[in-house]
């Protein structure tokens, strides 16, 4: 099918966003939430999701300015070349960094937990799997997503349910709604990388029947994933206690390690979980790559598609290999935060400018 004419349904967008949540919210996220506040962990989670929904709402408003175009073309039409550059350049920078970090983080996790001796250059090859998927266009990504979700979601939901074993509810900390200390914590703003999944739909604007409703699949996916997000934070806390959970790099993975039942055939639940998460990571990387190539081609229209994917794929692979240590990933997520928040704040600003311009036009 001709990619440009392809129309994606809300369900397909929902599946894509679900994959982004699946790839981002298991590993570093519980660590960041646990370190962002003393006890009311539900507050950073809910605040994050609310900010995400608001971001998605304004973003779909932006897309709806010119239905049938992707986000880059919309900005170009609305604010001209400067507007395009103000969005596409930070966007490309952010997506590139996010891809590098997701690829590297996942490779590190596999190396720390299941494949201790496999060299990182081999583990990073998932970047190329994602590259081929992205080069196939949005249609291949969506089709692969449907299959991956069918495999990945039951496994992750099942594992989350298994996580309910050995809970001790006296370990919970008070649900104090007045506990706003997370608002001035670095970790909270670092965790914002989970909320901005809608940005990766930038290249999908022309595939949406109703771009103004793009926020609905995001909200639905966030609502479906919210219990899992709570689980990744609260299941370790209610099992290990807050203090031990805080010293763990991946509390949810350690929680998986602690589960042991007589009737459970699988012993290494962590390996099952990571294998299911790889599917989400591949999907998310391909979606990100697709939007990155769209951004690059919006800035440099003469760039042919296939070489662009090759450059982006190889670039991501090499940059992911160049990261020296895990500390650097944590630091990288933090250093990336201003760009991410800028991208979050840009759509409402553009909408405001567009409305002002329209108002002025109407007066004139």
């Amino acid at each position, binding site marked *: 099918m001709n990619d440009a004419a392809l129309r994606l349904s809300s369900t397909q967008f929902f599946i894509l966003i679900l994959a982004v949540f699946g790839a981002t919210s298991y590993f570093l996220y519980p660590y960041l939430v646990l370190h962002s506040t003393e006890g009311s962990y539900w507050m950073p989670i809910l605040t994050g999701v609310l900010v995400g929904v608001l971001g998605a709402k304004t973003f779909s408003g932006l897309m709806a300015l010119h239905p049938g175009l992707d986000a880059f073309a919309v900005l170009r039409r609305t604010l001209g070349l400067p507007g395009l550059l103000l969005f596409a350049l930070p966007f490309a920078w952010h997506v590139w960094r996010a891809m590098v970090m997701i690829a590297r983080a996942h490779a590190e996790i596999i190396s720390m937990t299941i494949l201790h001796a*496999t060299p990182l250059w081999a583990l990073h090859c*998932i970047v190329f799997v994602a590259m081929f998927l992205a080069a196939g266009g949005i249609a291949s990504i969506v089709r692969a997503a449907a299959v991956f979700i069918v495999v990945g979601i039951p496994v992750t939901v099942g594992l989350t349910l298994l996580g309910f074993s050995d809970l*001790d509810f006296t370990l919970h900390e*008070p649900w104090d709604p007045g506990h706003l200390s997370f608002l001035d914590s670095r970790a909270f703003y670092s965790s914002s990388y989970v909320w901005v999944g809608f940005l990766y739909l930038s290249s999908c604007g022309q595939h949406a029947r109703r771009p103004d409703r793009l926020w609905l699949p995001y909200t639905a996916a966030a609502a479906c994933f919210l219990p899992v997000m709570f689980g990744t934070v609260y299941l370790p806390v209610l099992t290990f*206690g807050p203090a031990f959970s805080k010293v*763990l790099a991946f509390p949810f993975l350690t929680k998986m*390690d602690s589960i*042991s039942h007589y009737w459970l055939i699988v012993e290494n639940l962590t390996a099952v979980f990571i294998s299911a998460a790889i599917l989400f990571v591949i999907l998310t990387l391909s979606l990100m790559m697709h939007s990155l190539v769209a951004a690059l081609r919006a800035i440099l229209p003469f760039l042919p598609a296939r070489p662009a994917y090759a450059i982006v794929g190889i670039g991501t692979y090499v940059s992911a290999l160049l990261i020296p240590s895990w500390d650097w990933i944590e630091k990288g997520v933090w250093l990336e935060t201003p760009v991410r928040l800028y991208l979050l704040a840009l759509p409402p600003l553009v909408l405001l400018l567009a409305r002002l311009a329209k108002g002025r036009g109407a007066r004139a």
Partner: protein
Amino acid sequence: MRLSSKWGRWLAVLCLLVPTALLQGCWDIRDIDNRMLVGAMGIARDDERGVTIWVRFPIPHAQQGTTSNDKGFLAASQRGKTVVDALDRLRARMPKYLDLSQTRAVFVDKKLAEEKGIYSFLDFAVRDRILPISAVFALIEGDMDPIFTRPNPSGELSGVYTRLFFEKYAGGTPQKNKVTLWQVFNKHYNPLQQNFVPLIAADDTFQFYLKGNMYFSGDRAAGTLTPDESLIYELVTGKLSPFEIETAGGANVKVETSSARIRTAWAEGRPDIDIVIRVVMKLMDASHTKPMNKQNIEQTIDRLLEDRAAKVFSVTQARESDIFGFGNRFRASLPTARHKEWPALYRQAKISVKLESHMVNEGLKLLRQ
């Protein structure tokens, strides 16, 4: 060559397959017959500075061949500065890969736990994930040698049998109080609850027997509760499964279910803990010397357990060891910064226990004559 041509397509398929082949992690390949799986591991004190580790490997019959080892297992010990160092030195002696990933039980010498604490010897398990954190944990009194070197009289599968001793689906009883490694870590980091772990010693007939359970004060073992006293812990934490108790009068009852309702408050700056335990039981054997009616038996059980509980609370309070996790219930009123004060607060706590036992039936033979 265009990608749409026949050869181009094959090339594309090949390019997709090559990276997937790399994703399988062939670097880690170690066949099962090139590994020696540790069933149980022990950590004992060596001298002031070092430790001795003990490991027991099950040896499959197919591999025994005509060697002198027909016991079905191999035990090895190794000294080292730390546990990781001892494991490294052990590897230097081993013909095959030392695989700790299937370890079923981890034992620590009681003296080591009393004098040096346990956490520093176990920390590596969390960090490196070479040892499953769901392995059972126990302290060993006396020499570790017989526990690791003697054949298991009830059959081999050493590690598995060690674990079965504690598991409820096999030989476990409430008194044996199964504790896993992650539970030990949880309490190490939580000043509001102390560790309470089984203490075992070598047995004449079987591999080992339960001597009691040790309560911790901080990282170190502070004292032992007898198996009977350990029942109070199970009653308060609601982990008591079917278990028999003998009354002073000689009657035997079987506890079917028990539930504890715990109310906590502050009274004059001291924790005030009020516990009501409801026990549902049935009669196993009536006293043959002194006939008792249902009320008598219930009252006797109440008094017996209340007295025992009072003793257990006073002993653990004296050593500031809140093994019951009452402190967790004060999280709402005790800020995190003050959590460290909990052991001292527990010492001053006012604890009242009330038992409400209820006999549901008297078995197939009625009590009234």
